[in-house]
Every structure is written in C-alpha cells, then in structure tokens.
C-alpha cells in the first residue's frame, strides 16, 4: 500500500503547529498503525529530519498511552480499538490519512502528537480510591459481592485512561473517565464508606481542571476502546447530587 499522511507537527507548547504532508510506500496491510509510523520515523531520522513524536508503550491496547485523532476520529474509525491495535488492513491503498493529537484545553500539546494528560491523575487523586493501607484488609471472603455487581464494576473499571473520550467530546468533557472510576467503586461494598465524598471531590476536580460539561452526545462512549457504558455518567451524577444534597 502507498499512503499520504497529513501529520500535525508542533515542536513544543509555544509553537503554533501545522499539518505536514508525508508519503509512505510499501505499507503492509498486516502492519499496525504505529508500525506504519515507525517506518516513516526511521526514514525521517536518516534524512536528518525530526521524527514524529507520539506516545506509545504496551502496543497491545491496555496501557492507554497511545492515542491520536485519525481522520477526525479518536483512535480511528474502527470501533473499540486503541491506536496501537488499529491495523493498516482497514485502510485503502492510495488513501490520505490525517493524524492529529487529542485536542482539549486541559490536555496541552507537549510535542507533535504527544499531549499532557496529568489532569486525569489529579482527578484520581481527588478521591478515586478506597482508603485502605497495606496490611489492614480483612479476609477476601468476609464480604461476598453479587456476581452481577462485580461484573458491572469490572466493566467500568476497564477504563485505560487514554483520554479518547475527552478528545471526542464536543465540550471536551472528562465525564466518562471520571464516571468510570466513580461507578466502579460505587458498585462494590468496599467503595461505600467514601462513595458520596468521592463523587463530589472527583467531579469538583474535573471541573477545576477545565474539562467541559456533559450534554449527553455520547461521542465519548462511541470512541472508547473499552466500551465504557454511557450510563456510568448517570451513576456519577446521581452520586454527585446526593453528595451535594447532604
């Protein structure tokens, strides 16, 4: 396959940035999207150019480090996929592909396709945990958990923190990310003591970071690599309202 790439290049936070066009040839359909970029970068290095900076690590769809907006869609058009798991067999020979970083005010660009997602860590710091120091736990079987609750908690807990939800949302909202953690912990007995204070603190922190509000467009769940359900946001709002009514 031969492709034309239009890639966002930005040398640093103070650079205005621009799209730059590259040709890549002899792309195998079995390559992953990132392997295709590796090929481009190997060439750029030898030509004395700056290779395209992008975040990636596990390359098996679980660490959440990679993420690009491909042809206008976070992680590309294939559903429930991270960028690293997207393969070139989903593109046509001769296609032009645009590649941009996540765009949201709370995710400033560091360089090219690399953005700063530390706002997510601060949302977790606000309360995304159960306060249980090591060594203080009772026997794991002392509190049975309904299988359905454990399964639903798991579904919410699979969030990989990639930030695609924010990039896809017209409001730049982090509601799906925040709601996933709140829902995971509110469905389990272990999460009950801090349930309302957690919801309040995390939502307040999310707002303080400058993420937008949720208007139920559902773009977030559509691009989410783990398919975090939209109803987690209802769960979050319910806990948040209860916390504020107290």
């Amino acid at each position, binding site marked *: 396959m031969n492709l034309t790439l239009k890639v966002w290049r930005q040398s*640093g936070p103070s650079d205005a940035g621009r799209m730059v066009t590259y040709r890549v040839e002899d792309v195998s359909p*079995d*390559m992953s999207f990132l*392997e295709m970029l590796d090929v481009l970068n*190997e060439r*750029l*290095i030898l030509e*004395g150019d*700056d*290779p395209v*900076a992008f*975040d*990636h*690590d*596990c*390359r*098996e*769809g*679980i*660490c*959440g*480090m990679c993420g690009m907006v491909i042809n206008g869609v976070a992680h590309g058009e294939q559903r*429930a*996929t991270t960028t690293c*798991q997207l*393969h070139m*067999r989903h593109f046509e020979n001769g296609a032009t592909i645009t590649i941009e970083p996540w765009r949201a005010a709370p995710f400033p660009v*560091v360089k090219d396709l690399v953005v700063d*997602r*530390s706002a997510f*860590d601060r949302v*977790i*710091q*606000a309360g995304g*945990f*159960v*306060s*249980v*120091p*090591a*060594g*203080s*736990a*009772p*026997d*794991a079987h002392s*509190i049975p*958990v*309904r*299988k359905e609750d*454990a*399964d639903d908690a*798991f579904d919410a*807990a*699979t969030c*990989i*923190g990639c930030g695609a939800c924010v990039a896809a949302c017209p409001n730049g909202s982090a509601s799906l990310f925040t709601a996933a953690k709140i829902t995971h*912990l509110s469905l*389990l007995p*272990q999460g009950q003591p801090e349930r309302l204070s957690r919801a309040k603190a995390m939502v307040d922190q999310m707002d303080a970071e400058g993420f937008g509000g949720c208007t139920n467009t559902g773009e977030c769940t559509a691009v989410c690599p783990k398919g975090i359900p939209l109803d987690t946001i209802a769960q979050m709002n319910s806990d948040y309202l209860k916390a504020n009514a107290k």
Partner: protein
Amino acid sequence: MNYVEGEPIRDTKAPAGPIEERWEKRKFGAKLVNPANKRKLNVIVVGTGLAGGSAAATLGELGYNVKSFCYQDTPRRAHSIAAQGGINAAKNYRGDGDSIHRLFYDTVKGGDFRARESNVYRLAQVSVNIIDQAVAQGVPFAREYGGLLDTRSFGGAQVSRTFYARGQTGQQLLLGAYQALERQIAAGTVEMFTRHEMLDLIIADGRARGVIVRDMVTGEIERHVADAVVLATGGYGNVFFLSTNAKGCNTTAIWRAHERGAYFANPCYTQIHPTCIPVSGEYQSKLTLMSESLRNDGRVWVPLRKGDDRAPGAIPEDERDYYLERIYPAFGNLVPRDIASRAAKNVCDEGRGVGPGGLGVYLDFRDAIGRLGRDAVEKKYGNLFEMYERITGENPYDVPMRIYPAVHYTMGGLWVDYDLQSTIPGLFVIGEANFSDHGANRLGASALMQGLADGYFVLPTTIGDYLAAGPYGEVDEEAVAAAEIAVRSKIDRLLAVNGTRTPDSFHRELGKLMWEYCGMERTEESLRKALERIPELREEFWRDVKVSGTAEELNQVLEKAGRVADFFDLAELMCLDALVRTESCGGHFRAESQDADGEALRDDETFAHVSAWEYSPKGEPVLHKEALEYEYVKMTQRSYK
C-alpha cells in the same frame, strides 16, 4: 569474554530455624522507625508497576518521604498492566488440597530447583494477604454466583489457585496500586515524577544515596538524593527487540546499578512464553501474548504429517498430533511454560509448524465451544479472542489460533538478599528487576504475586531495618557531580556520532542475534558466536549510530539510543552466563545437556547455585556463587508426564 571466579556468597541474611517461622522471625527482628522519624527519611522508588507502585504507596502510608519516578506519562501505564491471566495465592478456597506449602513446593519445582527456598516460602505465605488487600481496594476479581471469588488453574499446578479479573488481572491489580499511590500523592507523602528516566545511581561512602534522572520533556538532568533507593524497573526481555514487553521497557536502571557495584544474578534465565501471536513481517515492533489461561480450554496441536498445508478444519482428528497431551498425559496442555515452548519449537523444527514460515502451532477451541457453548467461551476469553482477531484478521471462534513462543519475562536480575537488598547497601531491588523467587523458570500467575508481595509486604518491613540506622546525612557533592557528569558525557557521545544507522536498526540486529544464539536453545558454539559478534556490533553502534535532534527537548531517538547501548553490555553478560552454565535448567536449555527424551537435564553437582556477576571495568566479570540448599523440597528431575 573471560571471567574470573571470586569469593562465594555465604550469607543471604535469611533467619535460621524452621522455614515456616523465618519471615515472622525477620519481621520481629527488623528494627522499627518511630513515626516522627519516618518523616525525616527519604526514599526514592524508581518504576511504578505492581512492585514499585505498591512499594511507593505503602512507604508513603507508613510516613516516609517518598519520591517516585516513571518514564511513562502517568504511573498507571507500567507494563504490569498488560498481565492477563491471573495471580496465584494459597487461599485454598476450593478445598482442593492447596496450602502454603504446596504453592511453595510448586514454585520451587516449577523453577527447576534454582530458587532460594526461604524467599519462595515467604512469597507463598504472603500471597494470601495480597488477595485480601486487593479486594479491600476494590479490585473487581471474577466471582461466582454465591458472591465468592472464582479461581482457575494455571500451568505447573494441579490445584485451582489463580484469582483473575477476566483477561485483565494485571490491569486491575495495577490500578489498585496506582490508586493507592495517587492517594499518597494527594496526601503529600509521595512526590511523583512522570516522564523521568533514571540514568545513573549516586553512590556515596559505599551506600546508594540517590539517582540522576532526565526530564524527558525538557531534557534537563536532575539530581535526587535520599537515604535509600528502590529499583522496581522490571525485566530486560527487550534485549531480544521482539518480546511481549512494552516498547519502553529497558535495562538501563539495573545495568547502571550493576556497573556501580550491584551483582547481577542469573542473567541467562529467560522465559519464553509458549502462547504468543506469531511474527507477521520484518516491520514487526513487538509481540503480543495470548494468556496462558487459554490452555485451560484450548488444545494445542499440529498436523501429524510434515508439510500438511490443508486448512486446519480439513485435517481429520486422526491426522492431528495433540503433542502436549501425547507427551505429558498428566499435565497435558497445562505443562509449565518452558516445556510447552520447547515442545512447540521441536514440532516446528520437524517441519510440522503451521502458518507463514512454518513457525506456529494451533491452539484450538473447537472442542471447548462444542462442550461449553460459544457463549461460555466468550464470557471467559472474549477480550482475548477479540485482541487476536484485531491483530491477525482471523476469527478464533471459527479457525484455531496460531501461536508461537516469544520472550516474555526474565527470571534473572539484580542479586538481592532475604531483605531484598542488593550488594550495594541502601539499594533495594523488587519485582521482576531482582532475581529472587522464580529460579530458572517462573510459573504463570506468579509475577503479579511476587511484584505485590515485594511492594506491599516485604520491602516496607525490611527497608525499615536499614532506615532505622539513618538518616544518613548530607551526600558528598563530589559523588553526585561524578554521576551527573557520567550521564551528560554519555548523552553527548551519542549525539556526536552522527552516523548512518538508526538506534532501532541496531536494536533489531542485536535482538535477532540473541534470539538465534541465546534464545530457546543454546549451545557452546552459538554462545561463542554471539560473544564474538556482540562486541563488533557494539563497536559499530558507537561508530555509526544516528541520533537526531538535541538533548534539550523531548527526543525519543535519544532515549532509545541510550537504552540500546546498555542492551549490548547486558547481552554480553547473558551469553557469558549461558556459556558458563553448561547444564539445562528451566528456561535455560543447553542442547548439550538433555536426557533421552529431549528434556532439560540439570547438573546439580556442579550448578546448584546462583551465579552472581560482579561488574569489572576491565571487562572481566567476577563470578560469585551462592550455593542453593534444599532442606524442604527434595531435588528431583522435573516430570510432568
């Protein structure tokens, strides 16, 4: 490469007495630090995987002043997150005959009698606390309808002791540790440095006193000093270029510590995981593992006849060779990883491999789907099947998976004593970065167990004993400056070469060489070839590598070049270690040492020891042997038949 033999290691600091009582004894004997003094003691933890994340969080909870470092953009991304199958614990919730002693026994045997008994026993003891801790944190383990935890079987065990969270156990456990860590960051006990890479260890007055790190965004070189340093920087499987490790995993932190005096133990013990997706082309950047749990229900086979290129569905039952079930009737598809990997290599060497290049075997779910129904199989393995389809474009519900062994884990690592302290006082090493618990082969679902045992329960106790004698005072300025200069000059050297080959091209070449000469099967001849070729390639690297950009910016090429440079040195030591150990054991298979059936043949007379290598700037490493004594498990030739 020559070496010299040094003094043996006689004391591992494990308490004497009955093995069941040793950890209790050590805990009681370890000095305590009073809460007011803990605030005055600084600890650096490098790496935020299961071991590092849990250690930093727990040390913070205890009241120490902690600085935590990771190269990713957030601590939640460390590669522990990719562990799929599960975590072992001797809970015996099934009543199927499990016990601490049985987990201990299975681990020592699975490690082919090359692990230290005291450490392994402690690991089995602590395993039960890990499950309690994780559940209390809200880790959503799989449960049964009665609300209790579900378990499954894993390779190398005949009991069901593996706890799991669908195919994402590592992710859920890591997020538990990450959340505990973020809680401490909010509480101010832990200061977090993301996108920071450790490039050197500061040693002053013979003690580890800090690290030199590079801020990967600005390129700034920073100094951080402390009373103790903990390395939790993972394994070195990426020396093979293609492995199941994350792209960023590297050996730089432990290699630098090794150069500064920490012994490196058993570097040749590499685990080749039997169930990975085969290589599809030259551009391949990494390999993806398919969880070992799949072997619970999937059946491994190849065509009986050499060169049979019919579609798998067209091959009738009596023309298939379910070779693991045939050779190992007792364990069948659940034999330990080293055995399953080598068996796959053997059938492929016979010309019976499947898929492009003949480097693959089938992992077939037809019978499981027939027995349990598609829905049940989907519930258990759905995400793994999806991942397979995404990568290969084939649907494993209809066509059997194709799998092949790939480098997955390194049992070797920095030598540590019972307290997890290296040969440098004040330098502790935990998780995959140390060598301690898995001998020559790690059992499935035991990496998560060890990482969390070290981080939540062992290190926080043992490091207290060292810190109780602190604080260790001001750090000698000259020592700090020396480490910083070493880091800067190495970066300058890399940038100055301005050659014609990329760091990745060297890494690929080194990886291929290691896979061919020091991979699943090693011979004296192959290892000597590698030892000849590695220095040549390294010389070429330093003469011809091209690193674009500058040191004062985010520069992924520079990061990569530094890591590749260290892989060369490590690769050499691995090959030397493999050459010296002329026996076969666990993941280290020397073709010269096998029994009549082609199984690994140990030589306990000569090699029942840990090989701990001391770095020598003159290029002649010094071998220190730690004798392994088995008081509780009788050394036998492993048999899974």
